[in-house]
């Protein structure tokens, strides 16, 4: 496992991401932007799911809130991009604080159902509040951020707007992911893992479980809001179905697809999901059917997702030539969280 860990994955991914505009294809840039943004969305959910052990069916609410807040600021108030983006994240975090307060008092199924209920309420508000959210029509024509300054830069200036925005997205998403990584590696993150492992025992080592779960909820909400804000711009419009509960299922599926016990798992899952979607929908309209079948195969055959399965396979290959202490493959599991 050490070989896998030694590869500086972060740099590899970042480098790969930066290459995309040079490929000169509108389509590739489009897909890559989609992947980058939804990776952040899925990774924010995994903070709750894989690290804290909380199953939320309403994560799309924060995605939507971030999208609406940012779009409204940029469109109606003419605010600049970065402050609006941050405001979107903060708005989502604020809602996460309020909703999360009630949700963490419940466990398991009840927790999941309350997150679902809150998400549906947010959806209903967005759907009905015509004056502010544009109701059913949503907010079309969200302005692009002002990235004209990019045109004056040497290499980047030659790119299309779509590519320039893609690079901005990559930068922002990279910063957010770095932030998430830091948080997960921090004592706070360690406590979350401990809570997931054994919440009862965590109490008896001095952990205020509810407070930590709420904090995780808020952080996850913040990053979901950022991803929503970016998506609203990318999509050139914000619509109520950003908040609908079936949208919440997407990051869940991406996380399971990629593997929830690996840090990069959800990102891998997002990429796989989007690419799969592109391919399948060009052949047939029965994308839900395909998704359902893929999901079932995952659940039964590859519960660790893509990343989990790969890591497991590598471990097995490494463990074979060296039959030393039986704990070798097991001890690696904690490395897998890399």
């Amino acid at each position, binding site marked *: 496992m050490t070989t896998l860990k030694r590869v500086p994955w972060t740099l590899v991914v970042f480098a790969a991401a930066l290459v995309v505009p040079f490929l000169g294809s509108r389509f590739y840039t489009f897909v890559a932007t989609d992947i980058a943004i939804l990776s952040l969305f899925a990774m924010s959910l995994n903070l709750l799911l894989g690290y804290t052990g909380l199953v939320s069916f309403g994560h799309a609410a924060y995605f939507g809130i971030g999208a609406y807040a940012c779009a409204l600021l940029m469109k109606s108030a003419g605010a600049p991009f970065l402050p609006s983006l941050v405001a979107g994240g903060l708005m989502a975090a604020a809602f996460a604080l309020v909703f999360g307060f009630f949700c963490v008092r419940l466990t398991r199924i009840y927790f999941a*159902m309350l997150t679902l209920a*809150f998400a549906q309420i947010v959806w209903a508000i967005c759907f009905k509040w015509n004056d502010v959210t544009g109701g059913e029509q949503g907010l079309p024509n969200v302005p692009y951020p002002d990235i004209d300054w990019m045109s004056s830069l040497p290499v980047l200036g030659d790119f299309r707007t779509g590519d320039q925005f893609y690079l901005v997205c990559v930068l922002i998403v990279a910063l957010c992911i770095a932030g998430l990584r830091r948080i997960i590696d921090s004592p706070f993150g360690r406590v979350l893992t401990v809570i997931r492992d054994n919440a009862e025992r965590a109490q008896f080592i001095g952990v205020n479980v509810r407070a930590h779960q709420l904090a995780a909820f808020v952080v996850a909400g913040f990053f979901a809001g950022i991803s929503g804000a970016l998506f609203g711009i990318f999509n050139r419009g914000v619509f109520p179905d950003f908040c609908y509960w079936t949208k919440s299922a997407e990051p869940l599926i991406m996380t399971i697809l990629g593997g929830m016990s690996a840090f990069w798992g959800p990102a891998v899952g997002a990429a796989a999901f989007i690419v799969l979607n592109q391919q399948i929908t060009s052949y047939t309209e029965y994308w*839900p059917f395909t998704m359902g079948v893929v999901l*079932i195969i995952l659940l039964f055959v590859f519960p660790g997702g893509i990343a989990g399965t790969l890591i497991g396979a590598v471990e097995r290959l490494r463990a074979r030539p060296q039959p030393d202490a039986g704990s070798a493959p097991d001890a690696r599991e904690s490395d897998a969280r890399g």
Partner: protein
Amino acid sequence: MPEFSFLFGQFIGGLTAAMFLFLIASGLSLIFGVLRVLNFAHGSFYMIGAYLAWQLVRWMQPAAEGFWPAALGAALAIALLGGIVERLLLRHLYAREELYQLLFTYALVLILGDVAKILWGTQQLSVSRPPSLAGSLELLGVTIPYYNLFIMLLCPTIAVGFWYILQRTAVGRIVRAAALDRETLGALGANVGWVYTGMFMVGSFLAGLGGALVTPIKSIVPGMDVEIIVEAFIVVVIGGLGSFWGTFLGALIYGQVLSFGILVFPRFSIFAVSVLMAAILILRPWGLLGRPLK
């Protein structure tokens, strides 16, 4: 001030909706009570039950009273489907985290939704009322179709029947024991596996029956699976997950809230569902008749 007959009409409407919801939600509650699985695909079973009923009626076309065998046939087919799903697939997930079970049932929703589209297309379909129950009666200024009356009598009868079986028979005792402590039950020699399969089939039967019986009243459309499952969740949460009479009470309450809520807050009927669910989960998560959580 609306007339009495108008109010009474709303009340009857709410009652009819409630009875259907009860039929479906009771299946959901039964499955959750024993298997501890929240079956998202329950609504899909309801929808397929409706489509199957339509299909069977069509095949028996010349026969006048095709509806009743069709409804029963559809419900039994759904029960069989449930049994297959549980035996072959779901049971392997019991040992895993709940998330996997939930995602599995969600995958079923995706699959069954598209299967329905493939087999029956996206057009609205409907079934006419069985001739034996055509017509209606006038009560207090409101026209109540005989069919609706029949439903309003049938569902409580089914409720009482189930209650009786659960409380008074040996089979019922085993089921209740399975709900409380599966390990001990297994140790006592009861074949827990078949109890689970059986319960899943019974629950699915109820969903399929509900779908089949609703066809003369509501048209069959794609999306009815998602719509009903959210309502069934509310009902079960209000009454208390796993509580049989709780589901009945929850259905009655929800039916009336929906009926009269639309009058009072027409713009906000879309909220009613979610706000009600959130309120119950915040204030009294175990519902009206459920067991307190801790």
